[in-house]
């Protein structure tokens, strides 16, 4: 499995074995068959290097930081060796007109084939004047770049759902990418910031199979956003037993009980934090003692306060209580009926005699 990527990885101290293991991990995280790991490794090692244009809009560069600097040097960062990153403001050496020229060249040379990555939301207020690059509004640049793109990856909650710029009262009229581009396949990788491995997983999938992974109804890859934080949370057993931390400094908090009553949004948040974790697998918000903010869900900033217990499940919980009580009542009723039946059978017992053993 030779190739320029393997060589460049080797130069950075990453062996072929490590790379293969990483690909196998990626494949298993995305619930792909074991053979896919090998296929991914081979596809990524081959020097196809598709052109990628990365457009930053109303954003904080946190998403870029997440991928490039979260735990350096990460193998996630090596993704940049697998692609030809022709435009990325933060990372590229060129600036000004040279940079813009590089973008236009790439768009022209790879028309219809390049991958467009967007982070940040797109402001529509004042004709898009809230965010401009080189004198051109974000919405204009997006429309132009989307036309020749094979697919678009909306990285971060801002690009996927509007994020913090779109939070009430949304002064800039921010919208997500999917509100503007309607005729291109879009993958949303939300999160504030998104988990690096999710990003790499989607790119690896695209490089290997030439297609985007399976998406949920909000355009997110099912492999990473198929389950809620709550479903996979290691504190879930405490929730099931009704053991909740009431403050951040009580016995429950110290014992690692469920943070639901402290406003954890885990039950309504789809993301892979509980399994993939952060900072090279060191920890993740709930493990560090804070509830989930729900950052990978639309409008998480306006979901009623980070420390307010979820109002959504409150009603279902009451209904569940009633249902449980009703179920218990039915159960008790049945058991009484069954007891009566068994009692009657016992009462009607006729002593068994030798004559009974003969067939009548």
């Amino acid at each position: 499995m030779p190739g320029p990527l393997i060589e460049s990885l080797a130069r950075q101290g990453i062996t072929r074995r490590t790379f293969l293991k990483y690909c196998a991990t990626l494949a298993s995280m995305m619930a792909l068959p074991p053979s896919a790991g090998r296929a991914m490794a081979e596809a990524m090692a081959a020097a196809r290097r598709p052109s990628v244009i990365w457009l930053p809009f109303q954003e904080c560069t946190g998403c870029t930081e997440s991928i490039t600097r979260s735990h350096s040097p990460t193998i996630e960062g090596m993704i940049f060796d697998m692609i030809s990153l022709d435009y990325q403001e933060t990372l590229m050496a060129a600036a000004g007109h040279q940079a813009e020229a590089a973008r236009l060249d790439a768009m022209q040379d790879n028309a219809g084939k390049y991958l467009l990555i967007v982070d940040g939301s797109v402001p529509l207020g004042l004709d898009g004047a809230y965010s401009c690059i080189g004198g051109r509004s974000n919405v204009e640049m997006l429309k132009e770049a989307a036309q020749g793109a094979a697919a678009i990856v909306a990285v971060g909650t801002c690009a996927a759902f509007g994020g913090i710029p779109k939070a009430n009262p949304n002064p800039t009229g921010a919208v997500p990418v999917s509100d503007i581009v309607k005729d291109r396949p879009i993958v949303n990788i939300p999160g504030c910031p998104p988990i690096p491995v999710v990003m790499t997983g989607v790119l690896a999938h695209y490089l290997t199979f030439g297609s985007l992974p399976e998406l949920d109804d909000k355009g997110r890859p099912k492999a990473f956003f198929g389950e809620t934080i709550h479903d996979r949370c290691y504190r879930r057993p405490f929730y099931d037993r009704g053991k909740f931390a009431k403050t951040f400094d009580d016995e429950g908090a110290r014992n690692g009980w469920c943070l639901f009553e402290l406003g954890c949004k885990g039950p309504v948040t789809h993301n892979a934090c509980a399994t993939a974790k952060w900072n090279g697998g060191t920890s993740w918000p709930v493990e560090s003692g804070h509830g989930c903010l729900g950052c990978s869900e639309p409008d998480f900033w306006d979901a009623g306060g980070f420390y307010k217990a979820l109002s959504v499940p409150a009603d279902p919980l009451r209904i569940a209580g009633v249902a449980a009580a009703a179920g218990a009542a039915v159960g008790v009723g049945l058991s009484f009926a069954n007891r009566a039946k068994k009692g009657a059978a016992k009462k009607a017992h006729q002593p068994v005699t030798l004559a009974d053993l003969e067939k009548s």
Partner: protein
Amino acid sequence: MSASLEKVTQTLKEVIDAPIASYFESCVHCGLCAEACLFYTETGDPKYTPIHKVEPLRRVYEQEYTLLGRLKKMVGLSRPITDEELDQWQELVYDSCTLCGRCSLICPVGNDITYMIRKFREGMAVSGHVPDGIRGATQRTVEIGGPMGLKWPAVANVLKKAEESTGLTIPVDQAGADYLVLLSSMEIVNYPEYIEALAKIFHKAGISFTLASDAFEATNAGIQIGASDIARVIVSRIVDAAERLKVKYVLSPECGHAYTAIRWEGPNLIGRPYQFEVVHVLEFLDGLRQKGALKMKDKFAEPLILHDPCQIVRRGGVLQAPEALIREVAENYIPVADQQKWNWCCGGGGGASAIHTDEAEALRAKAFGVKKRQIEAAGVKTMVTFCANCRIVMEEAIDHYEMDTKLLGLTELLAEHLED
């Protein structure tokens, strides 16, 4: 519904208790019990899967005690049990189940399938869906006194012979003795050496014992056929005699089902604790061994293996004593795989040995295959056991396969090598 069928459902409704309900609810249909059953492993026929043997009982449970089952019955999705079905099941419940308990032990969710079959037999018995052989044994036990039709004069005769050959007295109906010794008809008729061995051991240890002329038979065909009312009558004979003679202990003979009947089922049948303690003869002997009162003059030299009877070891809980005792007397004891609580049944327990139809006998011979392989793999010519029923069943099979294997009873083997 016919009158007899009504009796069946009525009885099954009565026997279904909380354990049975939870067993049916927790069965995960894994099929592991099939691999535990020698009737399945030796025939490969899935109808011998233990949990399948109680299928009619499961249907009654579902139809009578579950909401869904009642609905299913109402709309005709679940058939009520029929006489033909019970006829068909008779073979599965009696011929091909020895209540050996291996399925109960292997069940990953802890279902006591043996207990379910035992309870299901109650329903089969009240409607006469029972093999002639066990019915006859039950009748003889109730009317005459023992499953083989033995009366006290015949027993007294055997005791007299034993007294003559040992030169020891064997007390009868002696109040205040420590032990009331029970026998099984099988021992009286086929292995009277057991009685002689026991007399020798008691005299040597200086412990008082007695037999009771009105309660010598330890086996209980009422339990095997599944008629608790009859089983109660039979077990009460022993309880009455033991409490009248004011003995401290009742000594169960080697016979496995006798031990289950008197030790485990008895108090539940009469509904109160005994005023005496039940001890299996091997527990008694092992007690003597631990006190140093069981000294051997020499050892049995030839290589041998041990067959652990299910009802004494796996079901009965006498786990350590047999091996400790065999090591005392055998120079060359070879432990085999599937020993102790994992042993394989002889193929004729639970009343099965009383069924003498051609089909039942052929099935028993087939089921012996697993034992046969054990004997052949160990390469021995001697097998020791401590249950008269196991012994007679295996002797028949050894004859059937024309094998060159000798069977010995553990108590006699010990008595033979006991220090004079």
